[in-house]
């Protein structure tokens, strides 16, 4: 019955492959779009990194001029944060969160598609600045009043940056809202909050962080835009404004952003280590609450980016203390991951190697973070290469190593093919060596007093050796990353023969075929404990996590949700299982129909940004506001169409 219902559904939307991808609202397809798009951006961001390292490989180098260098380091940071790590996390949210909670899609499938298209178009708007020779050049942090005044940044560079980030911000907020609602409302029967996989937990926490942090960035960017376009003087000291206000707005966003980048990877690690150790995560509750505490504290630490600003010793003391506090839950996580490995039956697959190296490398980044929390030490280390070393140990040694681990772990589920383990291990070792060769010497450069963001240094400064070593490491790292792409492209040409459960997995995504069918689950699974699939396979000595009857309201029993019928009233887990079995009869699998409106809404939004950039240009200035108007019209029409578009096809309502 399920099969025939699906065939019917499919036939209705038989379209060309291109149209299917452009109009899809399937969370898995959107996840795959995010995946390849952000990996393509990883290549661009990585190439920019190699340009930086090439310019700094020898003293007094003239490979890039100062303007080009400033554009390159600004775009490297902006791309890696907003166009690579965040959307790579989003790729895995999209593909796996619904699968891990036993849902058939996200709460708002079309909003999900909109997030992707707005992300793609916003990214392209940002990247198109290269074509006009006006790439952003104010740093990823865009400090006012250098950026907010046309006196100090006359070109279109900063306009591209502001408009691109605003579009990306809308995409991100929509996505966060979607995953928050999905996780709260769409869990399968029995999937109580404390039975959720840690990756799902970290997605939930990240969604909350985004919802609370991004508005601050949005407001700050609006103020920069108003200063640049309408002369509002928010950040203009000559007119009584204060550029330091921007720093507060930016870092109130910017520090939670660090956890937006690292908490999902911590979630990935918390899935991968248990799977390859064949043991549950050690101290699940501690790990989950540590994540929540980190997120909470992350809103009280922003001024540790501003210790040298001169806020005074009392504010600095407060922010130093909160910053040190955040190291406690972080330390707890590290010990729990070690506890997970301890006593396990560890299988040395590539995914596990990356995940294990994450623990060591992230520890280095975490420790140097504690050094920065010590205000006097930060007076030295801030804006020096010591900090560059620190955050690359967190964002590459942390986020990206975990994301690489997740790629090796989940690629079979996404594409039905197992990545080559030998190439994978080569990739791992080259990455580990290249990474440390690149970034460890930057600590030494920090001790030697080399400031960040300088396009050249003189021969007499004694920085030659470690810059040379770092640059060689960077080339090695670049080459090793290409191996990942070789591996993926090679693997995609093989037949799709991956088993449903290649790693002896613990969570629900491994209970369905690789790749999963469009409707994910033939039967909505009933969850009997933490590590739901492991329990189904091997039984449990004890059921882990609170059972639904004690937390009826949060146990996925949700009559408002027609896609995901709950198990019925107050059932214990045994009864729930039998209830679930009755749902075999549920043939009304409804897949939301494809839609063009998410794409056109995203395009309209981006058109507004393009119009604002044009308005600031010398040659196209008069066309600017008309294009903004066109963008607004496109958004309004698209939203109307979106609103009145039937989501339940006849006969399927």
């Amino acid at each position, binding site marked *: 019955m399920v099969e025939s219902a699906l065939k019917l559904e499919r036939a209705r939307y038989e379209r060309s492959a291109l149209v299917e991808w452009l109009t899809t609202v399937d969370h898995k397809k959107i996840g795959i779009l995010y995946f390849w798009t952000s990996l393509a951006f990883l290549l661009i961001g990585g190439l920019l990194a190699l340009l930086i390292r090439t310019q700094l490989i020898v003293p007094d180098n003239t490979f890039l001029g100062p303007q080009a260098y400033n554009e390159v380091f600004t775009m490297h940071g902006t791309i890696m944060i907003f166009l690579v790590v965040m959307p790579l996390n989003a790729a895995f949210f999209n593909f796996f969160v619904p699968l891990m909670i036993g849902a058939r899609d996200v709460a708002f499938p079309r909003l999900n598609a909109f997030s992707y298209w707005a992300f793609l178009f916003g990214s392209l708007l940002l990247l198109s600045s290269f074509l006009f020779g006006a790439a952003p050049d104010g740093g990823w942090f865009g400090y006012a009043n250098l950026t907010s005044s046309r006196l100090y*940044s006359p070109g279109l560079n900063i306009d591209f940056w502001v408009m691109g980030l605003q579009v990306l911000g809308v995409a991100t907020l929509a996505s966060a809202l979607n995953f928050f609602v999905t996780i709260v409302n769409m869990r399968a029967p029995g999937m109580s909050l404390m039975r959720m996989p840690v990756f799902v937990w970290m997605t939930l926490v990240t969604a909350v962080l985004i919802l609370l942090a991004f508005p601050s960035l949005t407001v700050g960017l609006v103020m920069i835009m108003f200063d640049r376009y309408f002369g509002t003087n928010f950040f203009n000291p000559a007119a009584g404004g204060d550029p330091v206000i921007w720093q507060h707005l930016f870092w109130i966003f910017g520090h939670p952003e660090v956890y937006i980048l690292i908490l999902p990877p911590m979630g990935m690690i918390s899935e991968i280590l248990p799977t390859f150790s064949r043991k549950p995560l050690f101290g699940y509750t501690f790990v989950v609450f540590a994540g929540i505490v980190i997120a909470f504290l992350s809103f009280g630490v922003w001024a540790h980016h501003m210790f040298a600003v*001169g806020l005074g010793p009392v504010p600095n003391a407060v922010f130093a203390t909160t910053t040190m506090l955040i*190291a406690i839950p972080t330390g707890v996580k590290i010990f729990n991951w070690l*506890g997970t490995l301890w006593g396990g*039956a560890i299988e040395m697959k590539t995914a596990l*190697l990356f995940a294990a190296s994450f623990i060591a490398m992230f520890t280095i980044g975490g420790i140097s973070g504690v050094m920065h929390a010590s205000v006097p030490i930060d007076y030295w280390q801030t804006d020096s290469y010591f900090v560059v070393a620190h955050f690359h140990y967190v964002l590459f040694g942390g986020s990206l190593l975990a994301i690489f681990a997740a790629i090796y772990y989940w690629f079979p589920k996404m594409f039905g093919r197992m990545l080559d383990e030998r190439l994978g291990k080569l990739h791992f070792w080259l990455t580990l060596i290249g990474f440390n060769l690149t970034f460890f010497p930057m600590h030494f450069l920090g001790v030697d007093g080399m400031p960040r963001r300088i396009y050249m240094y003189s021969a007499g400064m004694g920085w030659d050796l470690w810059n040379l070593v770092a640059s060689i490491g960077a080339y090695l790292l670049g080459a090793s990353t290409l191996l990942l792409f070789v591996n993926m492209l090679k693997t995609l040409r093989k037949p799709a023969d991956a088993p449903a459960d290649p790693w002896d997995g613990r969570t629900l995504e491994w209970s369905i075929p690789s790749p999963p069918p469009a409707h994910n689950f033939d039967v909505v699974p009933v969850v009997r404990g933490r590590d739901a699939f492991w329990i189904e396979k091997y039984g449990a000595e004890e059921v882990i996590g609170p059972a639904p009857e004690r937390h009826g309201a949060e146990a996925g029993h949700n009559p408002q949700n027609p896609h995901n019928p709950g198990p019925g009233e107050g059932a214990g887990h045994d009864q729930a299982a039998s209830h679930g079995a009755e749902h075999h009869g549920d043939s009304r699998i409804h897949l939301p129909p494809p839609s063009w409106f998410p794409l056109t809404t995203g395009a309209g939004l981006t058109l507004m940004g393009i119009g604002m950039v044009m308005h600031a240009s010398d040659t196209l200035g008069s066309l600017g506001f008309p294009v903004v108007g066109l963008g607004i019209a496109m958004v309004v029409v698209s939203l109307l169409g979106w609103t009145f578009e039937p989501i339940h096809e006849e006969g399927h309502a």
Partner: protein
Amino acid sequence: MTKGRLWKRSLVVGLLSLLPTIASGCAVIGGSPQSVNRPAGDSMRKIWDLFVPIFWLSVLVFVLVTAILLFALWRFRRRPGEDRRPEQLHGNTRLEIAWTMVPAIILAIIAVPTLSLMFELDREPGPDALTVRVIGHQWWWEFQYPEYNVVTANELHLVVDRPVRLELDSVDVIHSFWIPRLSGKRDVIPNWDNVLIFTPEEVGIFPGQCAEFCGIQHANMKFRVVVQTQDEFDAWIRQQQQPAAEAPADPLAARGREIFLTPANACIGCHTVAGTQAQGKVGPDLTHVGSRGIIAGGVLENTPENLARWLRNPQAVKPGNKMILPRQLTDEEIEALVAYLMSLQ
């Protein structure tokens, strides 16, 4: 080769490859004129003394975590063909409370000296302190000595063992003032009356540079600090207080003075030479430029050849800087200007 052996061998190779980096690192750090591990001022000395024990504590934590990690990976690895399911252990509350407490205690230990040093670094100096107003410009530094009525650029003269109170301001964007061997950073923000206090403890020349990204030539917003004995400093102050020489005796320098003061050549629009009609405030005060060790925001040593190179094409030496010549100077004019500027001792 079995898989287990392969990974073990690769692990050893990987770790060994890191060793030379780390080992040689220890030998080859500290060689820069900006190396903070050789502090020459009280602030940086105290910061470094705070850093060293925290550094060793960090090494201990890292070694501990990595040792447990590597041991666990080795001890609990699954051998080829082995298919065992270990005990499904979910946690241990006592252990977890313990490892929540341990970092908390370590951090408390770090927090105490951190906070006390932070307050100490901001403590106002005694009345004998030397006050200097530091003004950040894109991309050079102006130094004013209000008590001596002296203004100079890119070269800060201080007295050894005499506390200094730097009052920091900017005329354009945010900069950050940093002399790595003497003190930590303090941002230079328009309209903020930031203060940086420290005491130089060694006679010598210490380079510093802007540490907050401030535009196209942020990399070349450099300066040097000349820490002198009280006598040397007094002599320097006396020299700086003298008005610029009247028309110099050397005819070439006199010709240079004439070129410099001709309004059409635009020099006087931006630069000051005390005692002349050159009273511009945009660029560095040149009253005693000949006595300085560096020019152009620390890009060039102050030699006649370098000065000529600068005057020939400032945009080639420091692309994007604010010195725009109204026209290309002739070689003859440059030679005369160099003679004049070098005569401003």
